[in-house]
């Protein structure tokens, strides 16, 4: 028989507490990993915006290649995020699945709004520099506010703080001009995400110990 409360040795107190700790850790793996996603996006921002920064003022071909590679880096980060989230949350339904879906659509809508706004500014005759500055600052605003929303929803202080930092750094980057704005996003934005990845990684490790 496999009904183990009628057979075998009785369950000890410390053993029971160890089971609880193990299963809590297992249950945590049904949620996307904050350190992994911050790390992926931090790397993507450092590489992507770093390339755009370095390519400004270079010849046209170099700049075009830098833009293509930066785009591919961002697409790769999106694919990793989607794959990781789907794998982790597979088989979970209910409230957190609904929150996750609404949050995911929030990112799509935010960047749809960013893209349309930037296109409209270009259409209204804004210079390449103004379009570039607005694209960077509005992208940072969208990312910052969505990290803040995520911090509220999951009561994740590090995520909230990262959102506030990116939002403010992105707004300030509009004063840095082109190519300075790209440098701010690569170093302060991407760097901030990598710091958040490290902080949440260390904290997760400590709470599991």
């Amino acid at each position, binding site marked *: 028989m*496999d*009904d*183990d*409360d009628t057979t075998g040795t009785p*369950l000890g*107190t*410390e*053993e*029971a*507490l160890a*089971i*609880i700790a*193990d*299963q*809590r850790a*297992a*249950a*945590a*793996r*049904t949620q996307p990993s904050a350190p992994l996603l911050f790390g992926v996006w931090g790397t993507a921002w450092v590489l992507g915006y770093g390339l755009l920064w370095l390519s400004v003022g270079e010849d046209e071909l170099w700049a075009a290649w830098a833009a293509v590679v930066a785009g591919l880096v961002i697409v790769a980060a999106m694919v990793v995020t989607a794959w990781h989230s789907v794998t982790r949350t*597979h*088989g*979970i*339904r*209910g*409230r*957190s*699945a609904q929150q996750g879906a609404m949050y995911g659509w929030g990112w799509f809508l935010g960047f749809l709004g960013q893209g349309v706004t930037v296109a409209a500014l270009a259409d209204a005759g804004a210079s390449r520099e103004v379009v570039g500055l607005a694209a960077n600052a509005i992208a940072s605003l969208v990312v910052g506010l969505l990290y803040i929303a995520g911090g509220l929803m999951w009561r994740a202080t590090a995520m909230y703080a990262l959102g506030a930092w990116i939002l403010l750094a992105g707004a300030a980057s509009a004063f840095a001009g082109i190519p300075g704005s790209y440098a701010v996003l690569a170093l302060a934005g991407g760097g901030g995400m990598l710091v958040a990845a490290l902080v949440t990684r260390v904290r997760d490790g400590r709470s599991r110990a």
Partner: protein
Amino acid sequence: MPDDALDPVIHAPARLRVVATLVGLGGGDRISFPRLRGMLDMTAGNLSTHLRRLEEAGYVTITKTYEGRSPATYVALTPAGRLAFDVYAQRLRELLGSGR
């Protein structure tokens, strides 16, 4: 059940693992039977037996549904199950003497 006794429905290794896993999910969440089985590394028959016992105690609800054409089973902790686990975990800590 006397005040100082551990809930016998939860205080068995396999069922404790099931309940502790469900507690770790978000409130209002349910988990598919295959995913839960994979997380616990239990056989389907074994897990079914324990889930039935937990369901009889009112600690979990088991929902059978369809996803497309294929049947799917979802497991969720009830508020009574969450409360029973909290009481159980509290008593464990008292027994250990730390009183945290």
